[in-house]
């Protein structure tokens, strides 16, 4: 029978098929190939193991890094926030006790967990990857089935290297354009924001999304990761892209990628990892990429987005009562007036970074826009590489000098202002253009107002001081 990519990966990881009876249908039991761990969602899981007298079944399939809490400046000093420091130290103790490898602050491989896994070559096609973090969907860009889990599930995977799961439904998202490219100034971030605006924050619930079509095929691995990363913002636990030459090229030679004869064997297997031509999806969505322009969010959930060329919407025109109330609340929280052109919305802070857009290509794109220009007066711009490797790479290319010459702050690696668990936060009422993934109320700091944007829009906005795209610059 014809199968989708998601079904193939699922079936190759079945430890046990759940029994189905009239009264009870059990979930399947799936083997997990890679378990990524960070300091925030793991302490209670390790404590659970300790209380039950259990060990970590496969420390060699588990990797921890410090990312959410870590400061991005003065990183050689102890963490000033005592509670954050305790959480990071707890991870170090747990990893030592249970034998889990860890990349701590200041290690050359430290960084955001979803940036670290791929750059080490650990994230590979056809694997099952989990992490106590909803943006684990990022790793689906390699044709892995990757999804976020809660702390109880973290404990479950640590103890058993498996998870009981119900089969997901499958949704094909076909992104196409006449020549397979995106228009100038349009990035994969704009594509995924447009997809979320189209299907809504709940549209992907219960589904694995498979992104396909000529536009997806022409994207780099980094651009693919940006799209898969935000699958969760459409409610889908996982998003996947079939591996191809671009994937193999990215992986070849990376530390944990197969070597020698095993490389050829692996690639031959990976080539099978695509949805069969006559495979049926439970749902399909078509996106016309020729119609896409730079996209920004205006509200407090990621589906509340519009092309930058539009105006702040008028809630009175929204038919659905719940959505209308949500839009009214969002405008009040965001301090926006219906009808204002989005290009006239002024911004206090620009954040470039996160597991969505904190990779080297993202920094290159932002640097190219800002090179030779200045950050607008009174505006703060933070550039936070997604990992130490990204930081070193950027510095070797001189990107740090471009950013600092423009008046931006060049920082060390971590999640930073995406969620403000470290000192990088918005003040109440402060407005940001952010390359991160969530514009929820208070996400970047209590009372902070977030507009989600691409790295290109972020950099142009930093120069003009209002939401802008590179074409708005002289």
């Amino acid at each position: 029978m014809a199968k989708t990519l998601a079904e193939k990966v699922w079936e190759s990881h079945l430890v046990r098929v759940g029994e189905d009876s009239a009264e009870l249908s059990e979930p399947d039991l799936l083997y997990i190939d890679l378990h990524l761990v960070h300091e925030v969602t793991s302490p209670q899981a390790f404590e659970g193991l300790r209380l039950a007298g259990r060990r970590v079944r496969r420390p060699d399939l588990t990797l921890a890094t410090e990312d959410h809490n870590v400061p991005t400046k003065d990183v050689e000093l102890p963490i000033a926030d005592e509670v954050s420091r305790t959480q990071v130290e707890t991870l170090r103790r747990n990893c030592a006790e249970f034998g889990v490898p860890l990349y701590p602050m200041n290690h050359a491989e430290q960084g955001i967990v979803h940036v670290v896994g791929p750059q080490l070559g650990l994230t590979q096609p056809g694997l099952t990857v989990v992490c106590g973090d909803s943006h684990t969907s990022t790793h689906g860009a390699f044709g892995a089935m990757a999804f976020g889990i809660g702390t109880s599930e973290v404990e479950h995977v640590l103890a058993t290297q498996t998870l009981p799961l119900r089969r997901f439904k499958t949704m094909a998202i076909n992104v196409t354009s006449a020549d397979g490219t995106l228009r100038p100034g349009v990035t994969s971030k704009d594509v995924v924001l447009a997809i979320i605006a189209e299907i809504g924050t709940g549209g992907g619930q219960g589904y694995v999304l498979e992104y396909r079509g000529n536009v997806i095929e022409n994207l780099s691995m980094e651009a693919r990761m940006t799209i898969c990363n935000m699958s969760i913002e459409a409610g889908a636990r996982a998003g996947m892209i079939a591996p191809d030459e671009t994937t193999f090229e990215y992986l070849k030679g990376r530390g944990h990628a197969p070597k020698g004869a095993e490389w050829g064997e692996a690639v031959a297997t990976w080539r099978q990892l695509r949805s069969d031509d006559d495979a049926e999806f439970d749902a399909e969505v078509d996106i016309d990429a020729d119609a896409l322009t730079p996209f920004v969010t205006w509200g407090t959930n990621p589906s509340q987005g519009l092309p930058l060329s539009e105006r702040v919407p008028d809630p009175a025109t929204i038919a659905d009562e719940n959505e209308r109330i949500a839009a009214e609340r969002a405008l009040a929280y965001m301090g926006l007036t219906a009808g204002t052109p989005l290009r006239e919305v002024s911004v206090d802070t620009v954040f470039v970074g996160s597991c969505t857009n904190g990779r080297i290509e993202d920094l290159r794109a932002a640097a190219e826009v800002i090179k030779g220009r200045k950050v607008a007066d009174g505006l703060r711009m933070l550039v936070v590489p997604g990992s130490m490797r990204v930081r070193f790479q950027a510095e070797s290319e001189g990107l740090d000098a471009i950013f600092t010459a423009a008046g931006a702050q060049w920082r060390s690696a971590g999640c930073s202002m995406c969620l403000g668990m470290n000192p990088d936060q918005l003040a109440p009422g402060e407005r940001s253009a952010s390359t991160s993934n969530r514009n929820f109320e208070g996400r970047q700091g209590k009372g902070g107002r977030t507009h989600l944007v691409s790295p290109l829009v972020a950099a142009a906005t930093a120069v003009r001081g209002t939401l802008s795209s590179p074409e708005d610059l002289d």
Partner: protein
Amino acid sequence: MEPFSTHTGIGVPLRRSNVDTDQIIPAVYLKRVTRTGFEDGLFSAWRQDEHFVLNAEPFRRGSVLVAGPDFGTGSSREHAVWALMDYGFRVVISSRFADIFRGNCAKQGLLAAQVAQPDVELLWKLLENEPGTEITVDLREKTARTNGASGLTVAFEIDDYTRWRLLEGLDDIGLTLRHAELIDQFEAARPARLPRTV
């Protein structure tokens, strides 16, 4: 986990859709390494508004939350479930739950009861017109019934396996370890080229 069969408590109308887990508990409360004491973080930004429903009697003593669609979206933080339970909630009713949040509820014994949106609207009106109305949630029957003059009964949906686990109070890791031999067999057959982190 404590078995769950029925629960009766004051219903709290939360007329908001897309209640994300950053609203349920902001990231600043996630720095703790303990498993309890998260009630202070629950809806902490909204609770600073004196008109927020949980700041009014009798709702502040509520234990059955009735919320708008797409409850629990966003971050995978199980802290959202801990905060709701530490505050005293035992049941959340909504017409649509985010997947990870629903899974986390099932692990902790917080009942996520999926009810059709028109029924949510009926419950909201009733709870607002008669504050303090108690709701009895019966997991065996899969119903939520308001106690009082109105006597509204609505049906809810829940995955049958989750329902069974909650009724029995069973722990997932224990259930999985019944199949330890199958895990051993699967592991022994995995190709040697698959990546290791060490």
